[in-house]
């Protein structure tokens, strides 16, 4: 018994220290330790509307003052996305975007962009690429975290968590108004940067409507005093919805509204104005 206990104790300490060490290097954690509110994140789909502007867009967003970025790698069957992001994914795939190409584009990432970057996409492209290889490559180019909405907790824990940890990558989990308290606690335990709070159970691109129920939900989460900060996403499209979200959380993520902007002419020049419109 004693041996068993002490072995387990020691190994978990080693692993824990090493993990914390790696995570400390992660830009996301640094950001969240220094800035606690009004954080603004922007999502866009790599390869949309043009194949080679992934870093140009990232650079423009950083210049405009965005705190961190979510770069989507497109998938043919994005079930959690509404029409706007579906369309951007379809177009990006038509343009020839692949994970291989995206990682090539990101090779110069850290020469041009200093803010934290997350990759966001669906499980299948990542599994085809190889999850271990994906994590290594992401860390190598300077990515800080990954959001894969259809990668379940059980599979993450049993199959993949080791690759994420070994490469200092944060895995971001989603929470909806229907997520139970037990599950939120578990998610909090597995997370090491922030929790992605969905404004409603919906696909992307809806409108944030703060009803009494939603306020109760935000308050309920706040009262749980989770160790990770929360960032609200889905339905954030303008200053009003952004400000509302920031009353309850450390910040918010804008996706579809920005992807719509990318669909217009001269989008690179409009980025600064768009971002200032969300957070003056």
């Amino acid at each position, binding site marked *: 018994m004693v041996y068993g206990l002490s072995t387990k104790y020691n190994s978990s300490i080693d692993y824990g220290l090493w993990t914390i060490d790696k995570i400390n290097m992660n830009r996301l954690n640094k950001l969240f330790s220094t800035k606690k509110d009004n954080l603004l994140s922007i999502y866009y789909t790599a390869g949309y509307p043009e194949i080679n502007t992934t870093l140009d867009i990232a650079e423009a967003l950083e210049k405009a003052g965005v705190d961190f970025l979510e770069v989507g790698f497109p*998938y*043919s*069957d*994005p*079930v*959690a996305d*509404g029409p706007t992001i*579906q369309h951007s994914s*379809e177009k990006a*795939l038509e343009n020839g975007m*692949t*994970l*291989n190409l995206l990682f090539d584009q990101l090779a110069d990432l850290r020469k041009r962009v200093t803010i934290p970057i997350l990759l966001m996409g*669906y*499980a*299948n*492209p*990542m*599994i*085809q*690429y190889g999850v271990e290889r994906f994590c290594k490559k992401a860390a190598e180019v300077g990515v800080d975290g990954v959001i894969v*909405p*259809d*990668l*379940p907790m*059980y*599979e993450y824990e049993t199959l993949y968590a080791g690759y994420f940890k070994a490469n200092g990558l944060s895995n971001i*989990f*989603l*929470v*909806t108004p*229907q*997520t*139970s308290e037990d*599950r939120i606690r578990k998610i909090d335990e597995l997370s090491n940067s922030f929790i992605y709070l*969905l404004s409603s*159970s*919906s*696909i992307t691109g809806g409108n944030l409507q703060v009803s009494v129920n939603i306020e109760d939900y935000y308050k309920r989460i706040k009262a749980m005093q989770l160790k990770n900060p929360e960032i609200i996403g889905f339905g954030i499209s303008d200053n009003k919805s952004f400000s509302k979200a920031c009353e309850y959380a450390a910040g918010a993520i804008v996706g579809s509204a920005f992807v719509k902007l990318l669909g217009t002419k001269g989008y690179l020049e409009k980025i600064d104005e768009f971002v200032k419109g969300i957070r003056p």
Partner: protein
Amino acid sequence: MKYGVNEQGYYGDFGGAYIPEMLYPNVEELRQQYLNIINGDEFRAEFNQLLKDYVGRPSPLYHAKRYSEKYGANIFFKREDLNHTGSHKINNAIGQILLAKRLGKKRIIAETGAGQHGVATATVCALMGIECVVYMGEIDMARQAPNVSRMKMLGAKVVPAVSGSKTLKDATNEALRDWIGNPVDTHYIIGSVVGPYPYPDMVARFQSVISFETKKQLLEHTGNELPQYVMACVGGGSNAMGMFYHFLDDEQVKLVAVEAAGKGVDSGHSAATTFLGKEGVLHGSRTILMQTDDGQVVEPYSISAGLDYPGIGPQHAHLYKINRAQYVSVTDDEALQAGLLCCQLEGIIPAIETAHALAQLEKMKFDKADNVVICISGRGDKDLDTYIKYFGY
């Protein structure tokens, strides 16, 4: 059951529930409750009563004499085409609507390819007085127009899926999106043994009535409840899983699953998943699916809307990988010829899906004493246009 699902929802390497958090509460509610509900006495009694009085079960096991003569074995047709609404799909629709009622759901959504599952779902929703929305690929709506009208007559709203290939996989995506947006009052009746756990197991259980009856009927016909061969077509694989279910543990029974090769396995226009697919995640489960090296789902092709699907159910993926069942494929042309042959030898117009299973008989080598059961999963009324165009009748 040796080949059944484990507690985590896996069949060997396949299955699980790869779903976004938005779907978690719905799927988790089902996972926690489905076995208790469907194994309850009161549920079983209502399910069996409806299968008997409403669907017309047991469906006959018919000894096809002219087929037996032609192929040199005792060929039996399990006549799911004689069910109310014309296919095996009604078995699962009845089971799931009774489950949805017990979960207190007020609204039903479904996806459909050939329209058979949509019609079955619209039918049971009419029967129970529950609102019904069916998602169907725009292309499938055109090639299965009579079924669209049938669903509408039954009171269902049919919503075209206009994304991607505008077929079954896209209809499934749209249904999943609807479910994400309606997490509390809506039940999603998935039509095949696909989707996140517990769907593959639940649908297989509801369809297992096919093999349950077959065993008894075969005993009456032949004095032995076990045949040498059991055959069925596979898109997602629900009729095949129902047909295999109670034979899985009888290892001496050879199981043959027939996929749609479309214009040929290597033609670039095919839906032969086990030949062309790789392991990955589709519609919530880890399975075998047709995809590019970059993990993008490939648009399948088959003349049969019901088989035009880029994946197979996770239990099929497992049976394939461990060689418990043999997976073969049949082209559009072979299937259509087999469909016509069945009309002319047995007076049965089979669905083009079913015709794929029949076509495989040409390639089998039987002993004269072999008993062979083939699932006649659906009737061909919905396919008359396609048959007529092909043969010029």
